[in-house]
Structure formats: structure tokens, C-alpha cells
């Protein structure tokens, strides 16, 4: 195996971000939006991504003050060890839970195709493979995702293009049917649901050129917005709002209903599922890595890899906690709401305190002295 340099390029970062955003939501988001705001979902998507852009601004700003350190290292420096370490620990717990949640939703979906395979088997297989890669650090993860990503995007593109023939844009009318209050609320929820915006807290120092972080993350947000938009318009234009509300996985249903050129290409779902599985896998991978990295940095281990295996049983148990697919979705809503509040409040707060106390200046001086 090639030696790990633990540096990723801006492009790799971009791809990691987009893949992580699209882990699970990509195939359910049209239903969630149809249920709450109907055909106005595309407005909510803009609003949600705009809010995320604000949150990400603070995250990157904070990270740039400490370009060689992760959240797990600078948070205790800013807040002091007694306040800082619990906050980092909370983040680590959330990353474990988010990983478990993605894993569970993923397994629920796979059970649709393999109804008789026990869910434990699906979860454990994915976890072990993810664990194997996560032990090798960020660079192999980035390379794994880099290989899978273009194929996934082209399949999504083909799906959207193929559905265009039957898409009736009239189904997106009337605009602004939902009340502004609901639209605002749903925008916040959408923004909270964009798991992946916070991975920069930990991954920024791994970027080869950290200065490119802004353009990378905004590019990723725009790319994600375009993907979600295209899928939302395709699904609503194809099925209509009322039918979309009844579909658990609207995008999968779209791929199944689609025939390109009469019956020339049918059963599109086989492509979509096989590729989507790999992309969903990548975000499990990223969150497993994040959790293990955070834990190892709190514990001041020199190697990140040793904390991967102890986390696997935890994630496995957490993934099995919800008893039904409906509970899973309910719990993951709570999870992303609480986590969203964390992500929207803690980084700006840290930034403020850092400026007041001047921690970052002291820190860079110390670093210079060390050299």
C-alpha cells in the first residue's frame, strides 16, 4: 500500500463534502419537503443552503485561526480544559450517533432489497469494511471517495435527464403556497439536516492548502444545492406532490419508474442502488473517521487508528437501538436538530472568545517558538 501522507487536496475535500451531504438525505429529501412545504421545497433548499453557508463561514474562520490544529485541540485552548474537553466529547458522541444513524437508515434501505438478510449482518459488514479503511487515515478515505464519486454523479445526472421527458413543471405551481413561517422553519431544519458541514472542524488541518477551504466548502454547498434541486424538481415534476408524500424513498421510486426511450433502459434502480450504496458507505466512513480522530485527539494518542475498533461496537449498538424505520426517522430528526443547534452556536462562540482572549495569537507565537 502507498504510504499515507495524511494530506488531501481541495478537490478531494470538495468530494468528501458533497458525498457526506448526500449520504442518506438524497433519496428521501423530496418526500420530507413535500410533506411539510409541498411544491415550495425548492425555495426551502435555497434557504437551508444559505443558512449552512453562514454556519460554515464561522467554522472555517475558526479553523483558519488554528491552521494546524483540529477542533479537539483548539477548543480546550480557547475555553480551558474544564469546559473545552466536555464540548469536544459531546461532538465525538454526536459523530458516533450520526454515524450510527446513517448506518441504520442505510441498512433499512438495503433490507428493502434483501428482506431476509438480518439487519445486524448488513450493519456489521459495512462497519467492518469502513473500520478497515478508517484505520488508514484520511488519505485513503479521500481516494476511495474520489473514485466512486464521478460515477455516482453521472448516474444521478442520467436519472434526472431521463426523467425530464415526463417531468411536468406545472406541478411545481403554485409558488409560495406554504406560509413564510413554515418556509423559514423548514429552511432551518434543512440546514440542520446537512450533516457534513461540520466535518471541516476536524479536517481543515488535513488540507494541503488550507486557504482554499472557503472556495471548497462553498463550491460543495452550491454543488449540493444543484443536486438536491434537480432531484426535487425531477421527483415532484414526475410524481406530483400528493404522490411524493406517499413514497418512502422517492428517488429510488423515480429510478424504478423511469424508462428511457420506451423500454430501452428500464429498471434503472439497479444502477442507482449499487452506486448509492457506495456513496452512503463513504459518509459512514467519514463519520467513523471523525469520531475516532476526535477521541484519539482528546486522549492525546499519537495514532488515530487505535480508536477505530473500540468505536465499532458502540456504533453497532447505537445503530440497533431504534426498533422500526419510523422510529429511526423520528430519532434522527431529533438528533440533527440538536446537533444543528450545536453547530450553529458553538463555533461562533468559540470564535468570539478566541478574539477576546487572543488565544490564537498566543498559540501561533508558541508554535513559532517550537520551531
Amino acid at each position, binding site marked *: 500500500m502507498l504510504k499515507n501522507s495524511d494530506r488531501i487536496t481541495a478537490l478531494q475535500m470538495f468530494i468528501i463534502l458533497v458525498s457526506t451531504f448526500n449520504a442518506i438525505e438524497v433519496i428521501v429529501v423530496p418526500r420530507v419537503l413535500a410533506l411539510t412545504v409541498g411544491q415550495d421545497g425548492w425555495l426551502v433548499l435555497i434557504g437551508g443552503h444559505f443558512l449552512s453557508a453562514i454556519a460554515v463561514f464561522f467554522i472555517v474562520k475558526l479553523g483558519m485561526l488554528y491552521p494546524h490544529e483540529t477542533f479537539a485541540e483548539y477548543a480546550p485552548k480557547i475555553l480551558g480544559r474544564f469546559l473545552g474537553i466536555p464540548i469536544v466529547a459531546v461532538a465525538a458522541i454526536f459523530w458516533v450517533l450520526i454515524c450510527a444513524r446513517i448506518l441504520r437508515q442505510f441498512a433499512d434501505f438495503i433490507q*428493502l*432489497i*434483501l*428482506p*431476509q*438478510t438480518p439487519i445486524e449482518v448488513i450493519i456489521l459488514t459495512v462497519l467492518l469494511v469502513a473500520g478497515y479503511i478508517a484505520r488508514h487515515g484520511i488519505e485513503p478515505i479521500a481516494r476511495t471517495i474520489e473514485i466512486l464519486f464521478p460515477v455516482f454523479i453521472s448516474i444521478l445526472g442520467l436519472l434526472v435527464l431521463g426523467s425530464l421527458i415526463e417531468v411536468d413543471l*406545472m*406541478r411545481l*405551481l*403554485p409558488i409560495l*403556497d406554504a406560509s413564510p413561517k413554515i418556509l423559514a422553519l423548514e429552511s432551518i431544519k434543512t440546514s440542520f439536516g446537512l450533516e457534513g458541514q461540520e466535518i471541516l472542524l476536524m479536517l481543515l488541518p488535513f488540507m494541503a492548502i488550507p486557504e482554499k477551504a472557503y472556495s471548497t466548502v462553498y463550491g460543495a454547498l452550491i454543488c449540493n444545492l444543484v443536486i438536491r434541486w434537480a432531484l426535487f424538481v425531477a421527483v415532484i415534476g414526475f*410524481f*406530483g406532490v*400528493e*404522490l411524493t*408524500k*406517499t413514497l418512502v424513498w422517492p428517488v429510488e*421510486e423515480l429510478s*424504478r*419508474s423511469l*424508462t428511457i426511450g420506451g423500454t430501452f433502459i*428500464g*429498471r434503472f434502480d439497479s444502477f442507482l442502488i449499487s452506486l448509492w450504496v457506495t456513496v452512503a458507505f463513504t459518509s459512514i466512513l467519514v463519520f467513523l473517521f471523525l469520531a475516532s480522530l476526535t477521541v484519539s485527539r482528546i486522549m492525546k494518542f499519537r495514532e488515530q487508528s487505535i480508536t477505530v475498533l473500540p468505536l465499532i461496537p458502540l456504533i453497532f449498538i447505537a445503530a440497533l437501538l431504534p426498533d422500526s424505520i419510523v422510529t429511526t426517522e423520528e430519532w434522527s430528526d431529533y438528533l440533527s436538530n440538536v446537533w444543528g443547534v450545536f453547530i450553529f452556536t458553538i463555533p461562533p462562540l468559540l470564535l468570539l472568545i478566541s478574539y477576546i482572549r487572543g488565544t490564537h495569537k498566543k498559540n501561533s507565537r508558541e508554535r513559532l517558538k517550537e520551531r
Partner: protein
Amino acid sequence: MKAIRPFLILIFAAVIVICAGCSNRVEINDRSIVLGVAIDKPAAPEEEGQGKEQQGGTQTGNQQNQGEDSGSSPQKQESEEFLRPEPPSEGKSPRYAMTIETPIIKALAGGGDGGGGGGGGGPKKLVVSATGDTFWDIERSLSIRIGRQDFYGHLKVLIISEEVAREGILPVMDFFTRRREIQQNIKLAIANGEARKVLEVEPPEEDFAAFYLDSMLQSLYRTSAKINTDMLEIRRDLTDSGNVVLPRVRASSPTEIVAGGAALIKDWKFIGWLSEVETSGYNIARGNVTGGAINIVDPKDPEGLITVLLRGSQIKTSLELVDQKPVYTIEGISEWDIVEKGTETMLWDTSYLAQVEKRLEMEVQRRVIHVIDKMQREFKADVFGFGGMLSQKHPDYWAKVKSQWDDKYFPEAEVYVKVTADIRRTETKT
């Protein structure tokens, strides 16, 4: 340790190779591929035991009540400390009878090798029924009638009998839309009479009634007197408004299926039939028409008839709110060829053609107006997507009328129809 290490790796690799595979797979020869499904009301219990072998080819399983061997005796009343579950309902007849049509693969493979001319083989298809209250229940109880696992991935048509549709198609649709292996481009039709009879038909041109019916329902360019929709479109219409127009089928003889006309579903329930001419009017109004012939009376000779064939058409519906009332305008252009003329009149004449066009326009508009009128007056069912259009363009108005749209506001809506017809060619004769 070092010595046995290669062997360990070898064993490990071998285990992976041997144990890998799909744990849920069902071999193709353990499956029976369901091509068509028919839903009926179960027959009265007297029929039990009848119809073992019918009409040479078709094997039929008899319909029975489920739970026949549940040996619980209601008379026995002991002092019971715990609540005993009630015995399975035996007196009540089950809600549905589901019939599946499945090919007998063995017979097909044998016939194919014989070079087509054989014909000496046994039956090519199996038509089996089972009864129950829900469709999963019935599907599972089919396994006491057929030895293979039924597979719905290649399902082509679903036929619902009029009786069942009258009670509502919502429970029926759920099984065929929730189940992932069922494709959403299957055809759905309402049977005039018993639905099972349609699947039992042995068309001379085709081995299976389901395939035959499927191809029959697809060729809309030949006539506009039938409905061509698939499950997906039906679901769209049903979730939007609850109203939909479905094709009508019936078995006219043991070898023949007739698929003209349409069945009207309102609020998921069957409420009436549309004739073939009315179906044609409906198709024109929705802009579904891609072909079809119309007869009109020769303007110069009231005895003679002229047949014109549709070559292309474009229909557009527009909506305006006038004095807080929706006014719809269906506008269309169409191109036709004169393909038959049973009179001696000379048609190589523009003024004559103009007369024919005039009559043609009248005829087309009459058909459309008639079917809209029938929907407004008789059935009070909006199947034209007028409500959906209103909700898209005037959501505030729609919010007011939504609850009573079908019963009160749709019948009062004004609809104008304006279709122009142009005759382009006259084939090879003048």
C-alpha cells in the same frame, strides 16, 4: 506458525468463495412468474369442487375458503381463565378472490424446441385462484395451490372486476404499489363481468392473455376508443383527485378479449362505464389521441359516409377566472386524411373539403362536449385535471372550492371546446 500461514490464508479464501452468495435468492425453476392478476369477488361456496380442468389448456384450481381444517369446535365451553382467541371466521366469505396467470415453463421450453408446429404439448399456462381478505394473505395462501413461489417482477396486467371496483380500488392498489418487485408500468383494467374470465382466455395469436391484453391496450394510435395508462399515471391521478378513467375489458368468448371503452373511477370507486365514442371524446379532451378514424356524413350525399383518419393533433387547455368562476377552454388543432369514401362525389375541391372539415370539427367537438357534459351532469367527476389546473393557477380560489369541487363547483364550471380540423391528403384517389 509460519509454515501453516499460507494454508490458513488458503482456507480463508476458500471459505469466502464458498460461502459468498445471495442469501435471499430463489432459483428460477422454483419460481412461477406471474404475468397477469385478476381480482374478483369470491364465488359462492356451492361452486367448490368445480372446474378442475376447463377448455383443454387451462388448468384451474378450485376456490376454497381458508382455514378449512381448523378443528375448533364452538360448542365446547369450558371454564376458561384466560381469554381465548376467537376461531377464524368461517361463516363470513372472504373479501377477494385473486387469480394469477403463470406460464408453465416446461411446456413452453418443449414447444419452442419442436419448431412451433408441435402443438402436442399440454397446457401452456396455469390459471389459479385463491381467496382471502387482503392480498398478502391471498398471495401467501396461493402456496397451497401452486408448488412454486410466485414472482411479480414481470407482471403485465392487473384486472379488477366491476364488483370489486364498486367497493373501492384503494385496498387493491396498495398491494400492487407497495410491493417493490412490481413494476409501475403495469396496466390496470376494469373487467366488465368476471375478471378471471379474461385471464382464462386463450388468444390464438399469443400464449398468454396477459401479454395479449397488454399489447392491445398499448396501440392507442390505432383507435382512440380505449385507454392507455399505466400504474404510475393512475396513481398520480388518484392521489391528486381520486378520479381516474381506466380501460374496460371483457372476455367475449373463450378466445377473445375486447378492450374498448372505459370505466370511470370517482373517489377510488367505480361509478360507471364510458362507451367507445365517449372514451374517444375523453382522450381528445386530455390530448391523449395519436390516431383513430372518424366517420362523417358526406355533405353532398346524406346517404354516404366519409372516413377520415387522424394524423396528428395538439390539444391545449387554458383556464381563466371570470367573475369568480373558472372558465376552461380546450383548444386544439388536428390534421386528417380522407381514407375512405363510399360515394361518387368528387372531393378534389377546396370548397367541398372545407365542408368536410366543418363537419369533422363539429363531430370532434360534439364528442368532447358530450363527455364533458356527462361528467358534469351525470357522474360529477372531474377526470380532466381541471381541479389540478385550478390549484396550480389560482391556489386561493382552489382553497375555497377544494372540498366541494367534484360535487358542486366542477359541474358549474364553464368549458369551451374549439378544435380545428385540417384535411391534408386523400390517399391515392380523388
